[in-house]
């Protein structure tokens, strides 16, 4: 099995020429032992994508801001659909890959972890910044009883919900890009 670890963070580059930002997404694999994986000189972390930076909020009206926020979230989802699309068929079925020791192996690449700060998690998962990206805990219970185990997020439910709101004209986002 090949566990894929993703990393991302939105980075502010400059205040000149109207606030430039970069939004890199990196990836590495869990098969590499941490002493190599965490060594910058061995370059085990690859740049996977540079996400599009959404335009600034115009501040004209609350409604315009809300529409912009919705567009940004849709754009982000579409981009991640496209970038992670090659994983979907491969995670279900086995692939044969060449390995470092000169042998071929059956590999199952699975996205296993995402390293990001809280603001980034909130942006990527489209949740409010006061809710927990890992588990189902209400915002007023945050920082509550540490011994209580909260249920982790049931992403299937979110997916079903999201699919119901999918505009009907296109079957998938990938199709949108292939037009």
């Amino acid at each position, binding site marked *: 099995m090949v566990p894929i670890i993703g990393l991302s963070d939105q980075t502010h580059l400059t205040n000149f020429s109207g606030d430039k930002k970069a939004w890199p997404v990196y990836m590495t694999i869990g098969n590499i032992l941490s002493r190599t994986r965490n060594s910058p000189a*061995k370059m085990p972390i690859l740049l996977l994508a540079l996400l599009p930076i959404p335009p600034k909020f115009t501040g004209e009206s609350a409604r315009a801001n809300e529409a912009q926020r919705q567009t940004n979230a849709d754009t982000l989802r579409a981009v991640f659909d496209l970038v992670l699309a090659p994983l979907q068929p491969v995670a279900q079925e086995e692939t044969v890959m060449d390995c470092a020791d000169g042998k071929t192996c059956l590999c199952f690449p699975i996205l296993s972890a995402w390293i990001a700060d809280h603001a980034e998690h909130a942006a990527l998962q489209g949740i409010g910044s006061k809710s927990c990206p890992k588990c189902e805990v209400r915002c007023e219970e945050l920082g509550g009883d540490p011994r209580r185990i909260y249920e982790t997020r049931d992403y299937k439910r979110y997916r079903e919900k999201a699919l119901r709101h999918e505009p009907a004209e296109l079957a998938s986002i990938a199709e949108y890009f292939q037009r």
Partner: protein
Amino acid sequence: MHLDIVLSLNVIADAASCTARPTFVGDELENMTDSDYESDPGLEIADIHTASGEIDDMHNDSDREDVSHLPVLERPSVQETIPGAGRPLGEVAGNTKLHKAMTDDPWSLFSSEDDFNLASLFVRSKVAKSQINAYFAQGLGGTDSRSFLSAYTLRQHLDVLDPFREYFVWAEASIDDGRHATTFYYRNIIDCVCYLIRQVAYSSDIVYAPIREYDLSGERLYSEMHTADWWWDIQGCDRS
């Protein structure tokens, strides 16, 4: 990006004969330094010192006699694996050829070891292009035959140095939300995985299967990602 290319060639030249999988059993562990793996000899000694200090303290202090369990600071004594997990299927086509080419001519593209070391120095110390050009313009390169005589030719050499570079292809896509059109760039994630798992430079530090480790007292030891339960569960359910 070019730093690892230089590095990987170094390691290939050193470890050309070492193609066996890391097993983490026995003597191999003793060669592992500078790691936080539980069998780091330096760490172990330090820990044993503190542990013995604690024991002395306890003899003096009768209130602390009810300490029931001292961690056993040994390397894992019991290891459990999933049979058949991480088993290789066969040889990679053309791998021996690639290895042979690399060991026969380890300085390939560069004319000699000196030549390679000079290029390596330029890259590692991040010498500016203009400085590299000035170096050759002033004749500091000496009379030896150099395979590169400018920053441009050095860059060209570096670009073809990576034997797995064909995995790296940038794709470009644009997204249009009706008001703004934005272009963004991405790579195929599967190709990136192939690239990483194929790197010969990492071959001594790659694991293919989960493992469960216990110390002498039967306590579970967690260190790397493959010693935890998640990988074990996923791989176990794949097998069955």
